[in-house]
């Protein structure tokens, strides 16, 4: 047996905030528990049958005021806790712009990660200390859940949809990665490690990884082969937006919404173009759902992302 631990490692900004909230809750609920247990014990001892303590009617204020008092008190406490918890969550809701994006694909029973430069890993994630990292996650089969206790973070990973999660690691070290959503036979073995490194070490590490394929290059070829360029090329006769620089930009949509063109948006634009129509354009783009598979989709998106630098901002 390994030595007794009572508190998990704390290795992200959000982990520290959650620990605060958790400690607060421990103190408050500990106090309530002591109050209830103490009252039970004292009352049981004092009013055991035949004891000398006076009995008789309850004073009126106990019947009414006390009841109203503790109802109101618990309600206020509940609202306060809601506010505290909600505020803690809101502070961490949106990833900062420029966060490092890593792709996570889950399948029974492994995790696959891919870094922006094409480096890939299985059941492992490396992250630089102090920098925001954003995970774009999807599953190839059932629902899994990406859980790093040291970061106090967990996010279900769904098939057919992207979920995301971000963190800023604060302490170099190796931490456990678990699958937290039951996903079949080897659910318990679907784990790995998250390694937090100093930024320089991380940069070196990433650069040294073998880059198996040139996703953006292959994406560029697909862009022509699938006929995207027929509409989207700058010289095209069709009225369609030029895609250079679209990635990461705020896009105004025909229905009045403004959204950031992140990865999920690009995917949606290709698979369900009618959903987010860019303002000023006709919804003529056909859906490519069923025509491109997941791998091709990743290549196309990688290509569009690579166009980021070429546009004047």
């Amino acid at each position, binding site marked *: 047996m390994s030595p007794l631990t009572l508190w998990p490692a704390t290795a992200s900004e959000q982990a520290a905030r959650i620990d605060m909230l958790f400690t607060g809750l421990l103190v408050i609920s500990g106090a309530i528990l002591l109050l209830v247990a103490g009252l039970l014990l004292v009352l049981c001892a004092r009013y055991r*049958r035949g004891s000398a303590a006076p009995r008789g009617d309850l004073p009126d204020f106990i019947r009414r005021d006390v009841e109203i008092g503790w109802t109101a008190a618990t309600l206020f406490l*509940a609202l306060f806790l809601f506010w*505290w918890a909600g505020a803690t969550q809101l502070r961490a809701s949106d990833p900062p712009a420029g966060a490092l994006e890593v792709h996570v694909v889950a399948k029974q029973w492994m995790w696959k990660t891919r870094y922006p430069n094409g480096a890939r890993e299985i059941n492992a994630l490396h992250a630089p200390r102090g920098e925001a990292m954003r995970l774009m996650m999807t599953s190839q089969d059932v629902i899994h859940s990406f859980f790093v206790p040291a970061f106090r973070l967990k996010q279900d990973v*769904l098939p057919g949809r992207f979920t995301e999660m971000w963190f800023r690691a604060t302490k170099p070290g190796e931490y456990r990665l678990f699958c937290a959503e039951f996903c079949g036979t080897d659910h318990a073995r679907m784990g790995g490690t998250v390694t937090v490194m100093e930024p320089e070490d991380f940069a070196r590490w990433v650069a040294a990884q073998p880059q198996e394929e040139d996703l953006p290059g292959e994406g560029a070829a697909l862009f022509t082969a699938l006929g995207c360029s027929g509409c989207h090329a700058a010289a095209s006769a069709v009225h369609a937006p030029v895609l250079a620089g679209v990635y990461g930009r705020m896009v105004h949509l025909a229905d009045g919404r403004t959204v950031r063109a992140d990865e999920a948006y690009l995917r949606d634009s290709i698979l369900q173009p009618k959903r987010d129509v860019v303002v000023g354009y006709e919804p003529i783009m056909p859906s490519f759902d069923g025509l491109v598979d997941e791998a091709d989709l990743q290549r196309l998106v990688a290509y569009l992302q690579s166009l980021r630098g070429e546009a004047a901002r």
Partner: protein
Amino acid sequence: MSGITAERAIPGAPPREPSYLTAKTGLASWLLTTDHKRIALLYMAAITVFFFVGGAGAVAIRIELFTPQADLLSADAYNRAFTFHGVIMVWFFLIPSIPNILGNFLLPLMIGAKDLAFPRLNLASWYIFMAAGGLAVYTLLSGGVDTGWTFYTPLTTAFSNGNVLAAAAAVFVSGFSTIATAVNFIATVHLQRAPGLTWFRLPLFVWAIYATSIVMVLATPVLAMVLALIFAERAFGIPIFDPLRGGDPILFQHLFWFYSHPAVYIMVLPSFGVISELVTCYARRRVFGYNFMVYAILWISLVGFLVWGHHMFVSGQSLFASLAFSLLSFIVAVPSAIKVFNWTATLYRGQIVFDAPMIYALGFIGLFTIGGLTGLFLASVPVDIHVTDTYFVVAHFHYIMVGGAVSALYGGLAFWWPKITGRLYPEGWARFAAIMMFFGFGFTFFPMFIMGYLGMPRRYHVYPEEFQVWHVLASAGAVILAFAYLLPMGFFAWSLIWGRRAPANPWGATGLEWQTSSPPPEENFHTPPVVEQGPYNYHPEHAGPPALEREQHQPQGRQP
């Protein structure tokens, strides 16, 4: 030995008229009975069997988790064990336990009725339950299911190779039994109350069963729908949850938790009722804040329908939705707190007697308080993100449903045992079992909070070594807990033959059920009672209970 009973030793056996137990004999008189009391006993037999079956799953789990490696069970066998444990315990033990055993037996007695409103429906409900139970056992024998009791899609519909259809069918069918019983209870409370028994004179147990029945009737159809959809997708390939064909796996979770959160209240509200009866009787006090207690039950049943999204904070649901569900979950905690405070305050200026049922009740209040307080942690979005799907959640719901509901079931069984069987249970043994249950429970489940926060995910048969300490504690505690559950079965059975005969009202309790003989005659009351006052008249209105004099309590009803 007992604190309350002075009049226990009745000289000589009183002349006994035929009770519901002896009025008719033969197997057919039991299997075709429409007497709510006998049907309650049929349920008791069936539910006890399921408690053993589900308990066997728990035993397998706790043995396997004693070490970090897989030693007793393979991965698949373990997955089947916890799935089976969950399915049986939720639908075949916890949900039917108090309502169908104690509720069935007591509801008509407590409101001075001859029987439930629809006696034959009551029997039909038992047969439906048995059919469902048969399907559940068939599921086990045909290889079991490996989806978890939550049946999450698309695992359930497209990937599991267990016998999902049989399991879904078992749960689906059991739902009809639940609904039939609930409708019966609702109708009974509306139509069969004794003259003078107005709504605000009802014992809190009746209120609790009534509210539970309403939740059952409203929630169970949603479970039936979602199980039917699973059936449609898995058996006929109709894509509803499969995202590759335009379905939505999250839709399943919404429907499932729309049922399953209220189901938590189906499991725990009846125990609130039991505890209110026990605490008042053994503190010899009117319940503190009767009206608040009633409103709290109704408030819980209503708001309980609006909080299902707190099971889905990490599912990808929008943050806005999560915050709304978080707020509602905090609000639903308030009435539960009121109940705890009011039970505690009921002790104030009482004449408290520590008989076994009271020890169960006090244990219930303690464990339920811990369960409820940890609910606040889970209602907080950021904390829940960390601890959901870990042992923290496992600990939390076992505190509510096992520490709470099962303690109340045992306490209630002991309390009403003389009424049901006409025999007194051995008080000393019962106190010992009650205390053992409290500590065994704490040893088993408290360590789970700690390992949950440390990050131990649920549904793992192998786990990192650092969690072993806590698993060993839990498994050791489970041994104590198992004995605490088995012991009463032993002495209850013993009392059937060797127990002393019980008088009509051994505890000096006020409810109508105590004003008929123990066990009651077939028609419950020879002359139907008339009610002129509220429940729990353990002492005159503007005084307290006097020491040692039991005669001060006033029965709620009177024979006209």
